[in-house]
């Protein structure tokens, strides 16, 4: 949608993984509001609801027919297989946006609180936008852990600012998260002068870097949590059990090693040794 007066451009992309649906509701709400209040539009809003349309249509996380994670194919190749050509064209299309928001919904295994993920090297240029996105958390990743074949990395490395948002869980839509993020996107559009009005800090996100503790399954089994998502836990508090239905035994009881908030929690009960169970935002993460 083009508000004509200002040529600043924000791109909202989602649907890279066909099982991540939270962004569908965001695109719907965004489009609806822009149509209803089109007089406030003062720039370009490009909405890409389905980078992997066949995946969404067929409940397939990867690219159907190739069993391939699209977000490991960027920047693609003009001359490669069809998946690489698509990745190449997506990048070409998005380059030049003033800001790209790449919305993900974790996967079917984990529930996430609304958060932005940005790398250390892009933090300076992205933080001011991420802070206005009305999210709960900004997680800054160390350079060494950045995956270089993602859309966000491809765009950021070609000077198109891109923020990855993760929220909710795969195969579901969490209405309140969608509504929360849309409010944040309009806020950032104001910041970019694409939407009329003054940007404001709606929700103060916690900014964290290394203040995250990962809890992985020490054994394979059936995981049953004894906390809910976003619970504040004390050091030593049980997080859940890994059970063995065949014997009726508890194979492992998992505890919080640090006090903090469970911002990622295992949703899918079957776990392999190593499966991620929870991430805890350790108390003391600084406020933005």
């Amino acid at each position, binding site marked *: 949608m083009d508000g004509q007066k200002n040529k600043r451009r924000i791109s909202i992309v989602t649907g890279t993984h066909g099982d991540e649906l939270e962004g569908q509701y965001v695109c719907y709400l965004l489009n609806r509001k822009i149509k209803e209040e089109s007089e406030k539009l003062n720039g370009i809003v490009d909405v890409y609801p389905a980078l992997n349309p066949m995946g969404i249509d067929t409940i397939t996380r990867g690219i159907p027919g190739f069993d391939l994670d699209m977000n490991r194919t960027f920047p693609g190749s003009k001359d490669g297989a069809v998946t690489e050509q698509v990745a190449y064209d997506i990048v070409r299309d998005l380059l030049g946006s003033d800001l790209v928001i790449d919305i993900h919904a974790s996967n079917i295994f984990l529930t996430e609180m609304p958060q932005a993920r940005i790398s250390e090297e892009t933090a300076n240029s992205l933080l001011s936008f991420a802070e206005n996105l009305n999210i709960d958390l900004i997680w800054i990743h160390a350079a060494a852990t950045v995956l270089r074949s993602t859309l966000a990395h491809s765009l950021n490395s070609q000077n198109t600012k891109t923020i990855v948002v993760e929220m909710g869980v795969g195969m579901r839509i969490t209405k309140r998260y969608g509504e929360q993020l849309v409010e944040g996107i309009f806020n950032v559009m104001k910041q970019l002068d694409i939407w009329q009005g003054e940007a404001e800090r709606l929700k103060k996100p916690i900014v964290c870097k290394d203040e995250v503790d990962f809890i992985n399954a020490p054994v394979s089994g059936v995981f049953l949590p004894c906390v809910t998502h976003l619970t504040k836990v004390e050091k030593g508090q049980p997080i859940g059990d890994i059970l063995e239905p065949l014997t009726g035994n508890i194979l492992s009881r998992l505890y919080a090693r640090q006090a903090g908030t469970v911002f990622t929690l295992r949703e899918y009960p079957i776990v*392999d040794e190593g499966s991620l169970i929870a991430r805890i935002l350790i108390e003391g993460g600084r406020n933005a």
Partner: protein
Amino acid sequence: MKEQILFSLKSLYRESMDIKGYIFGEGEKSVCIVGSMRGNEVQQTYICSRLIHTLKKTEERGEIGKGKSIMVIPSLNTYSINIGKRFWPTDNTDINRMFPGYGLGETTQRIAAGVFESIQGYKYGIQFASFYIPGKFLPHVKIMQTEYMDAETAKLFALPYVVIRNPRPYDTTTLNYNWQIWNTKAFSLYAKQTNAIDVSDAEYMENSVLTFLHKIGAIEGEERLFGASVVVNDSSFVSVHAKKGGFFLSELNDSGFVREGEKLAVIVDPLSGEVSEKIFAPCKGRLYYSFPSSMTHQGTLLFRIIPD
């Protein structure tokens, strides 16, 4: 021959997945050969099983190079092979995007870390790799264009081509790349086939590895393959894509060579039966890749040619 469990993973209901290495000879860690990492790499696993069988006899004849040891790991992912799924059975991750791995991380990171610890320190590393799109390849050895690459040594496999590839962003997490970073000269071998056994192709690839082992002194005995390799960069390859989707009917000749203007295939509209596209070779050369399926999407890569 010594059998060693390099990494073991327990499952809720399945038998444990034991990743096994088969070690021949004693002494300097000379060559490590890795087979399948994906569940559809049947040919790659088969070639390694043949190598294990052959090297066992070689060892019994006392023909493993003195003071040298060879390890073959036929599969890193029997759980996926067992159910015919390319990537990890539960979360669909790719072990060959997890190197060097992380022992306290997620499942496939742990597998990569566990195995990588055992396969470090070898002078040469050979991996039977496969491409993510299905198709038939001209057998070749591939090396990545890094400061560590060694095309001259790659020629010792006596395969027709040594293909040099510019690393892509995801390559930094592959076994080949990480082997090189940890000072192992790494070579990826691509067989003609992936998800089914082709016995003559397997024999050819086995002979290629045995030739290499012979030339570097890891085994004694006779060389199996002869002939010089040509070093080519894959950026020079010519790709042919489908402009239309539909039935794909290949008209390739059996020689493996194409002439400029030669008809390679037709695409037929699946509803009307009309020929919607005729596909001709854009140049003269050796066929490097051909699409195997009976149906194609628009834009699909159908052929790659190494131009003369």
